[in-house]
């Protein structure tokens, strides 16, 4: 069981580094389905995992290339600190069954946004290529 959890972490980590997204979105369903956790317990555990700066190694690579907007990053951190507290207060009284359903709806919404972002990237890449040529 311990080995399985270690491997699950490794798998989630590969996705984090590969796609530049948080691991929680993979971890929460994995904890619910593989470790039979209740939705609230899976979410609380996921928040605990995300507490240490697990993305520091990846950030270093982005920083070297100058791909970090420090001002925006700091503003985001402030907004998220406050927002996350509000969100957790919302989550507490929701029955686990409904919370699981809402989480599912959220995943579908995030999937659509992620898909659309890919489309925008395509146009941006095409545009910047055209600019560098022009």
């Amino acid at each position, binding site marked *: 069981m311990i080995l399985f959890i270690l491997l699950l972490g490794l798998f989630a980590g*590969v996705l984090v580094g590969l796609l530049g997204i948080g691991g929680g979105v993979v971890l929460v369903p994995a904890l619910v389905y593989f470790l039979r956790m209740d939705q609230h317990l899976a*979410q609380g555990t*996921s928040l605990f995992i995300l507490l240490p700066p697990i993305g520091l190694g990846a950030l270093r690579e982005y920083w070297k290339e100058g791909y970090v907007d420090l001002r925006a990053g700091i503003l985001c951190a402030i907004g998220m600190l406050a927002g996350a507290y*509000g969100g957790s207060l919302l989550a507490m009284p929701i029955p686990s069954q409904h919370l699981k359903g809402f989480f*599912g709806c959220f995943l579908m919404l995030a999937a659509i946004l992620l898909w659309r972002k890919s489309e925008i990237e395509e146009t941006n890449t095409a545009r910047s290529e055209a600019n560098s040529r022009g």
Partner: protein
Amino acid sequence: MANELRRDVAILAIASVCGIASGLFGIGGGVLLVPLMALVLGSGQHRAQGTSLIALIPPTGILALIAYAKGGYVSWRTGLLLIPGIFVGGILGGNLAKHIQPHAMRRIFAGIMFVLGAWQAYGAWRH
């Protein structure tokens, strides 16, 4: 100046929305922050991801974690076991991303996430 202020307000608004999702669903929020920064602010792919990573370095979920811990909703042991794997896996994934097409990967991941979400919602509400 006015433009910069407007941009800052937009960033704070986006971050608050991501934060609410983070606390409500126990996630980092990067999955929402990266696409929203691209869609609303027009940030490039790498810049959005790098900025999302720096926003996730401070323990932004700490207040939410305390709320969950008070409710007894944290499995500390499982969490501790998952952290080293994610850290090592993150470095592996970062290197892997250099060799494969990340755009296609993101689409595949979006597809999997949509199915996973539909399955979870169905499982929760089918009765």
